[in-house]
């Protein structure tokens, strides 16, 4: 029979503080060069494709021409922003953008979570694989294809319209109706992107310890209780992180989807900031400075929103996009 023995360690003499020898830059380079080498392509990519182009935002304050030496381009202060805000077509484009962003946030974001939860509850591997393929493959279709499919099926001369005509009914007026464009956009998003959005939540779900479910089940928690008390808290940090990132990109709702349907539905229903910049700056020939001013406006609003959302997340005890130090 074993006897209980004290597991306390024998008293030891206090250890002297570790004094790290300060290493020179050369020593650190010699030690860390594999890590630095790994990071180099990413840093180069960021410098070339992000930071360097960002520096060119300064042309939003210039009357810029690519054919003049850079410093000979006259500064015009906020004149381009003045032109932007005074343009009668800017505010409707901004409001449309916010409308689509809000719809995306309220209806698409939860849909991806619901799909992930539904997927997670499927036990059969075959059914699970089939479900996953069906819901996320449309993400790889181009917007041209998505819009064409919708016109072919729900257009005024599409499949459904022709069924209705054969049955003595009337043609659908859905794909070229500005009043129902919001619903059309949501349907296209749901088909194309909800499955893709689900994947990241699935990864988060996989990280939840299964023993928690077993313990909860043995304590009598039903399916809904387990979801409410284990699943959702388990993926909450990911939900918050993605929510903040989405809020940051709220003014970037896309371009192709709206541009492709602009003729069918009209510019008033489809004009968002990105199409506005294209039509006013490139098609309308207002030049590089005007387009940059509009882009900078989007960027600044995005930065402010992301900082505010992150701050709110911290106030509610969440981690946000970075840990509060």
């Amino acid at each position, binding site marked *: 029979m074993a006897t209980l023995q004290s597991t306390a360690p024998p008293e030891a003499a206090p250890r002297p503080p570790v004094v790290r020898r300060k290493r020179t830059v050369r020593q650190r380079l010699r030690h860390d060069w594999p890590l630095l080498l790994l990071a180099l392509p990413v840093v180069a990519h960021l410098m070339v494709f992000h930071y360097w182009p960002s520096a060119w935002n*300064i042309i939003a304050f210039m009357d810029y021409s690519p054919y003049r030496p850079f410093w000979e381009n*006259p500064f015009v202060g906020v004149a381009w922003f003045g032109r932007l805000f005074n343009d009668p077509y800017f505010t409707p484009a901004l409001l449309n953008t916010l409308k689509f962003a809000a719809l995306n946030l309220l209806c698409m974001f939860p849909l991806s979570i619901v799909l992930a939860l539904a997927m997670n509850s499927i036990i059969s591997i075959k059914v699970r694989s089939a479900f996953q393929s069906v819901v996320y493959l449309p993400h790889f279709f181009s917007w041209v294809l998505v819009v064409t499919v919708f016109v072919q099926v729900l257009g005024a*001369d599409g499949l459904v319209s022709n069924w209705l005509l054969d049955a003595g009914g009337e043609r659908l007026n859905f794909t070229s109706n500005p009043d129902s464009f919001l619903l059309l956009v949501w349907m296209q998003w749901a088909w194309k992107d909800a499955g893709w959005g689900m994947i990241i939540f699935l990864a988060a779900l996989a990280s939840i310890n299964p023993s928690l479910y077993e313990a909860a089940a043995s304590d009598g928690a039903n399916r809904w209780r387990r979801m409410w008390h284990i699943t959702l808290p388990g993926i909450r940090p990911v939900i918050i992180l993605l929510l903040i990132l989405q809020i940051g990109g709220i003014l970037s709702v896309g371009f192709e989807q709206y541009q492709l349907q602009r003729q069918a539905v009209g510019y008033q229903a489809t004009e968002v900031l990105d199409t506005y910049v294209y039509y006013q700056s490139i098609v309308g020939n207002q030049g590089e400075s005007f387009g940059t001013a509009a882009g900078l406006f989007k960027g*600044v609003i995005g930065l402010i929103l992301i900082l505010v959302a992150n701050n709110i997340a911290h106030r509610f005890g969440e981690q946000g996009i970075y840990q509060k130090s």
Partner: protein
Amino acid sequence: MQSPTPSTPFKRRSLFKGTALGALGAAGLPFAAACSDIESNNGSTQATEGFDFLPTHEDWPLPVQPDLVGEPPNHPSAFTSYPEPVQAITDLPSGTGSYELTVPCWGTPPAQDDPYFAAVSEAWGGTKVTLRQGDGMTYGDTAVQWVKADEYGDGIQLFNYMTGSFSNFQETVVNSFYDLTEIVQGDIAERWPLLAALPTDSWGQAVWSKDPDDPDTAGIYAIPMTYSGGQGNGILARTDLLEAEGLAMPTTVEELLEVSRAWTTDSRWAFVGLDWFIGQWFGLGGIDGWNWDPEQKKMVNNIERPEFTELMEFRRTLWDEGLMHPDAPTGTLDAAAMQEAGQVMFTQDNLVRWDDFNQKVKRGEAEGAVAPLPPLAAKGRTPIVTVSPGIAGWTFLNKSLSKEQVEEILDVANWCAAPYGTTERQLLEYGVEGTHFDFGADGNPVFSTPGVEIVKNPVNYKAFAQVDTFLTGDPDMVADRFEYNASIQQYIVEPPFQGIRIEAPAAAKAAGTTLWDQQQDIAFGRAELSSIPEMVETYLDNGGEEARQYYTDAYKAVYGEE
């Protein structure tokens, strides 16, 4: 996720604050500097005639005479039989250079190793000109980036309408392309007799000024494309289907409406698109919609005239009565295929398709017949046919080329300028006999399938200027087209700004883009006809009045104070 320790020296929050402060600081810099008003993209006006530095014109006698003689450029002469070709250039230059020329391509780009390219290269003296094909649908927009980045090779071909994609085309031209003035001014007939025979107006339309306000800074910055005129576009009708239904070809807008109503059912429609061409049916022409009104003594835009409301009422009627295909607003329907299938009666198209359709019928690939509607007008008015004689576009050369290289490319352009009835044109236009074409029973060249894919359809060296152009091809088609051209001559209206090239201010261009969208809204029932006055006011307040002043100044500069 591991929490950073309190001793973490790098605090991301601090980074954000630092970044924000940095950004604000950077943004503040410009304000600290002296600010001025926006002066770029305010438009430019360029005279295209009256220069003393253009090539001296010297006639180049045609080796063969056309069978039908018209009144070029709006009524070109025609060949109803294929002439025995003669060699235009006997003293061939020897070229050794290799060049890359960017050109638009609609459809599949032809393989560059096809015998056509080798044969052409050998025929003009050995210079190798490789074509860099860009997607024709997006060519105008992407060409802007290629030119600004100097990634268009040694030259680029741009058609007239593509220049609208450039925010300041005048500035682009004088800064990016080779100034040919010194090379081509004066007497060039000895080395380039065919280029010297191009109409002087062609060369005039290749002139830009470094400073638009200073005529002394003008120069020749491009090799002009072919000079032509007449009606290029029209409304094609399925004449066989009209006949089968006992319907007559309409001769007025009102008759067109009646025919459309009689034809349309649940499964076939009169139109799939009808917009940019039909302003002239209501007497609306001009440049960018602007015309000088001699009674009011001011520049008036089409949208300010009562006829514009008539036009919009007509378009709205087509939509409201279901005469237009219900998916027409998508702009994605293949009108030509639908007309071929008999689903659509009328298409708005380039008149080249008249020939294409009838050729298909002759080859047994399609059934039926199409023909263009005659000039129409509403309410008993006399029809007008708006034409814009001039060059189709330009070949610009890279300013980094040397003088010798430019001269070598001009040798090639001179060879390509050979007109119909020459061996040079036969090779350019039809390719290699036996490979790309064969002579048919009537003696006319008939394309083979590779001939259509490699030579006929793509834009290639054919886009360089020709000394003279004619109606050619299928004799029946040539005769029909010649007759049609003759029948519309009495209605032709020349544009109001001949001899001057106007690039509108950017604000006006941007306002024009939205104006077109608003017209589409009304035409497709998304906005009411009653919104026209508001639409006009919005346009005028946001660049329209600026454009009016600009066009007024340009008009007075040409025609004086009236």
